[in-house]
C-alpha cells in the first residue's frame, strides 16, 4: 500500500516550512515515531516523524524547498514494513546505506542527501546550503536568504557558513539576521494568543499553598544523588498536574469543531523560553505514567534541545495540557493564556517565604501560587477549583508522585 507522507500541521498559524534535510533515503525502513525529515520553521528546526511502520520509496521534495502544510513530501510503502524490509524496489535509486543508530533523531548520522532527480515539488530556489551548513547557519542565527544574496549560485558548506558568519561579525552590517527569526516567532506567538483571547472564554483561579513538603522531600531525595539525577521542583508540579488531569475530567484534551474531545493520553506541554526570545511548549509525553527519574531525563533533554534549537514535531504538537513557570527568578503569580486547541494551562509562580499558619502557629513557610486558566466551554470554576486543589494535595505527598 502506498502512503503519502505529508507535511503535518505545525500548530496554530504556521502554514509553511522549509525542508532542511532528509534523514532517510529511498529503500530505508522507517518505524512509527522515527524521524524522517528535518524542517525549518518559525520556531526553529523540527524533526518530522513517521506515523507508520513503512519503507521510504520516494523523496518527492528536495531540501531547501518551502512547502505548505499537507504537501506530499515523500512516498512510503506499508507492505515493506513487516518482517525484513526488502530493499530491491528502491535499490536502483539509492545504494543501501547503514541504518542510522537507534539513538533517535537526536543523533542523526550526518550523511549526504540522496541526489534528487527532478523533484516534483517547488525547485529549491533559496540558498543552496548543504544540510549541515544549513544547520550551522541556523545555530549561528544567520538566515539562508542572506547567505544566498551574498554567494549566488554556489553551494555552501559548513566552513563557508562559519567564514561568512565571522566576516559578518567583524562587519556589523553584515549577514546576522537573528532579529528576523525573532520577529517571526513573535508573530507566531501573537497570532496564537490572539486566537486564544478571541475564541476561548477563559476563567482564572488561583491557589496559594505551603510548598514545604516538596522542598523538604527534594532536599533529602537529591542529597543521595549525583548532580545529573537530581530532580527539580517544577518537574514535580508537572507530574502532579498530569495525575490530577487523569483524575478530573475536562482539562486534558482539545476543543475543536465546537466540542471538547478529551484525551486519554496525558502529554504535558512545558513552556520553555527560547534563547534570544520567544517561547515554545513542547510536551513531556505520557507524563502521568512515567516515574520522576525518567521525566527528569526527558525534561532536561527537551530544554537542552529547545535552548539550542532542535525539537521533534511529536513533542511540539501533541501537548494536551500545558504547565508554565516563570522559574526561580520570576514573580509570585502568573496569569497564563490557554494554548489552543488545549483547554487548560496551569501556572506556577516563584516559591517565596511567607508568613503562614503552619501546625497551628505562624511560621515562615515556602509558598507556591498555583494558577489555572481554563476554558469555560468545557468546565466551570467549581471543577477548576477541584483540579487545582487536587494538584496541591498531590504535591503535599511528593514521595508518592
Amino acid at each position, binding site marked *: 500500500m502506498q502512503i503519502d507522507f505529508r507535511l503535518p500541521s505545525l500548530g496554530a498559524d504556521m502554514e509553511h516550512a522549509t525542508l532542511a534535510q532528509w534523514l532517510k533515503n529511498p529503500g530505508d525502513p522507517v518505524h512509527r515515531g522515527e524521524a524522517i525529515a528535518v524542517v525549518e520553521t518559525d520556531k526553529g528546526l523540527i524533526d518530522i516523524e513517521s506515523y507508520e511502520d513503512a519503507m521510504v520509496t520516494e523523496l518527492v521534495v528536495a531540501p531547501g524547498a518551502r512547502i505548505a502544510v499537507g504537501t506530499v513530501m515523500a512516498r512510503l510503502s506499508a507492505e515493506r514494513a513487516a518482517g525484513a524490509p526488502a530493499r530491491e524496489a528502491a535499490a536502483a535509486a539509492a545504494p543501501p546505506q547503514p541504518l542510522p543508530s537507534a539513538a533517535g533523531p537526536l543523533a542523526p548520522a550526518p550523511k549526504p542527501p540522496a541526489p534528487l532527480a527532478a523533484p516534483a515539488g517547488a525547485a529549491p530556489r533559496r540558498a543552496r546550503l548543504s544540510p549541515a551548513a544549513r544547520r550551522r547557519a541556523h545555530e549561528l542565527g544567520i538566515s539562508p536568504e542572506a547567505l544566498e544574496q551574498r554567494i549566488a549560485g554556489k553551494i555552501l558548506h559548513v566552513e563557508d557558513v562559519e567564514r561568512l558568519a565571522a566576516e559578518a561579525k567583524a562587519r556589523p552590517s553584515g549577514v546576522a539576521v537573528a532579529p528576523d527569526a525573532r520577529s517571526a516567532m513573535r508573530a507566531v506567538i501573537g497570532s496564537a494568543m490572539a486566537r486564544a483571547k478571541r475564541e476561548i472564554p477563559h476563567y482564572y483561579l488561583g491557589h496559594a499553598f505551603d510548598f514545604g513538603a516538596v522542598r523538604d522531600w527534594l532536599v533529602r531525595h537529591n542529597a543521595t544523588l549525583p*548532580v545529573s539525577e537530581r530532580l527539580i521542583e517544577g518537574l514535580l508540579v508537572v507530574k502532579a498536574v498530569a495525575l490530577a488531569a487523569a483524575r478530573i475530567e475536562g482539562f486534558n484534551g482539545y476543543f475543536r469543531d465546537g466540542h471538547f474531545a478529551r484525551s486519554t493520553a496525558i502529554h504535558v506541554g512545558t513552556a520553555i523560553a527560547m*534563547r534570544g526570545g520567544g517561547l515554545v511548549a513542547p510536551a513531556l509525553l505520557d507524563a502521568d505514567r512515567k516515574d520522576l527519574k525518567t521525566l527528569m531525563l526527558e525534561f*532536561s533533554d527537551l530544554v537542552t534541545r529547545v535552548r539550542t534549537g532542535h525539537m521533534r514535531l511529536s513533542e511540539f504538537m501533541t501537548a494536551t495540557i500545558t504547565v508554565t513557570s516563570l522559574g526561580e*527568578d520570576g514573580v509570585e503569580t502568573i496569569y497564563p493564556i490557554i494554548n489552543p486547541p488545549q483547554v487548560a494551562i496551569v501556572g506556577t509562580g516563584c516559591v517565596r517565604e511567607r508568613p503562614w499558619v503552619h501546625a497551628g502557629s505562624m511560621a515562615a513557610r515556602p509558598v507556591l501560587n498555583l494558577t489555572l486558566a481554563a476554558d469555560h466551554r468545557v468546565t466551570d470554576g467549581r471543577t477548576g477549583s477541584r483540579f487545582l486543589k487536587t494538584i496541591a494535595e498531590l504535591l503535599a505527598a511528593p514521595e508518592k508522585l
Partner: protein
Amino acid sequence: MEAQDIRTRLIALLTTIAPDIDPATLDPVQDVRDQVDFDSMDRLHFAMAISEEFDIDIPEHDYPRLGALQKACEYVQAKLSAGGSSSATGA
C-alpha cells in the same frame, strides 16, 4: 590544576550551554544570569556539566556559588585541591 585552565574549561562549558555568550564581554565577577539569557535550567545544566567535567560532587546548596565565573572558578579549584572527586563526601 591552574586557575587559568579551570577558567578556560568553565567558559567552554558555558558557551556549550549558551552558544550566544561572548566570553570576551563576560564580567567574571558578576552573575552570569544578570549579563546574558541564562535561566534556571541553564544554571542546572551548568552545574551538571561542571560536575562531569571535573569529576567533583556539587551539593545542591552549593549551586549559588557557581553563579559568577570567578566564584565558580574558585569553587572548582577548592574542590579539586580538597580531593573532592565524586566518591568523596566533598563539602
